[in-house]
Every structure is written in C-alpha cells, then in structure tokens.
C-alpha cells in the first residue's frame, strides 16, 4: 500500500467516525426533544384538568347556599396545587400572561363574597358563575398557548 493510499484510508476512517458521532448527536437531540414535548404535554394536561376541577368546585360553591368551609378549603388548596403545576412552565413570572390569567381565575373564584358569612347562592347563569367560566376558558387557552410557544 502506497503512502497516499494509507493517508486516504485514514482520512476515510476519520470521516466515518465524525459522521457516526454527528448522526448520534442528531438522533439524541431529536429523542430529547420528543421526550421534553411528551413531558410538557402531560404537564399541560394536568394543569388543564386541575383548572376544570377547580372551576367545577367553584360553580358548586357559588350556587350552594349553605356555609361550606370544607369546600372553600378544598378550592384554596386546589388553587395552590394548580399554581405548583403552572410554576413548571418557563414563563410563569410576575407580569407574564400565564400569571395574569391564573390570578384572574383565582380572583373570579375566591374574590368578592368568598367565605362571607351571609353570602347568597347564585343562579347557574349569574354573573359570578359566568365570570368563573370565562376566566377558566382564558386560563385553559393560555396554558395551550404556552405549550405551543415553548414545546411544539
């Protein structure tokens, strides 16, 4: 084997290894991206389920006349759990849309006469109930926006 052939063979071997490493890096990157997307999908779905659950608890609370300390406690606790889920999104900070929508949702549920002794039961189509539904839908949309923005 001539010296030139030896150099060509060595170069080809080197190129082969570089291609193998590059290929591995591409596949690894795609796998990581797929896994992150799966985790983010699951995180978004959990947050959306929690949002719907709280909205439903809130409607029950607003349309029921009796003082229900257990239910108000559950609503507050579930809101904190939802916030823990939302904190996993990259954009859950002071002036972010996700924080604004979450705060509006929490206010629509636990503001006003929440935990007031003499509160009255509202009708299913009362403004208070509609406000909860609107803020729930806004929050659900924002969760989906955040998923699209960061993980799609």
């Amino acid at each position, binding site marked *: 084997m001539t010296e030139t052939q030896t150099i060509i063979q060595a170069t080809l071997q080197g190129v082969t290894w570089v291609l193998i490493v590059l290929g591995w890096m591409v596949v690894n990157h795609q796998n990581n991206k797929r896994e992150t997307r799966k985790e983010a999908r699951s995180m978004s779905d959990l947050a959306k389920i929690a949002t719907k659950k709280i909205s439903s608890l809130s409607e029950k609370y607003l349309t029921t006349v009796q003082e229900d300390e257990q239910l108000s406690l559950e609503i507050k606790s579930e809101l904190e759990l939802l916030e823990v889920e939302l904190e996993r999104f990259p954009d*859950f900070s*002071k002036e972010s849309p996700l924080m604004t929508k979450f*705060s509006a949702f*929490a*206010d629509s549920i*636990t*503001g006003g006469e929440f935990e007031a002794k003499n509160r009255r039961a509202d009708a299913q189509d009362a403004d208070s109930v509609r406000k909860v539904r609107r803020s729930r839908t806004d929050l659900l949309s924002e969760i989906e926006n955040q998923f699209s923005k960061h993980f799609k």
Partner: protein
Amino acid sequence: MSSFSISVAKDFSPSPAGRFPEDGPFPGAVFRDRILIPAIKGNDEVVVDLDGTDGFGSSFLEETFGGLVRSGYPEAILLQKLKVRSSRASYEVRVWRYIKKAESQKSK
C-alpha cells in the same frame, strides 16, 4: 432602620378566611387592624410571610392589603415599608395588584 416580620400562620392563624369579623374568627380585616397596621406604624419595614397556611382566598388578601390603602396607607408608603414573602409567586403579585387597584379607586 427597624424591620419587623409577621408570619400569618404563626402570628395570626394557619386558617385565615373571609373579609370581615362576622365571616369567621380569622378574617382579613382583623389581621389588618390588629397585626399589620400596628406593625407598619411602629417600624420602617414590615415583612409579611404568607407561607404555612391552608391557602388564601382573594377576599382575605384584598381586604387585608387593599384595605390598607382604604385605611390611609397609600401605595407609595407601602412600596417603601411593606414586603410580601411567599413560596407561591401569585400571592405577592395579587397583593400588589389589590393595593394598586384600591389606590386607583381611592383617587376616583
């Protein structure tokens, strides 16, 4: 400079709820009038720690902190004297929003 720390859970109740005294034993107005206002009067800085409770309704937080503005403490003074701490970021954001809203309603 004197600084004073208040833990809602330890110094008031782990189960704060409601706005007014008739709503229960640990409402926002009572926390504000008995604990928070005296602390603000007597200190240059007051740190309110919101951790360790069963959670807060906006009604409690609005009555406590928005109520500070209605009780004669403008936002400008509160920005200098009041610090809110919580492991849940939204509480701090909401507290300052209630203060700002009470301030804008006062000036109308």
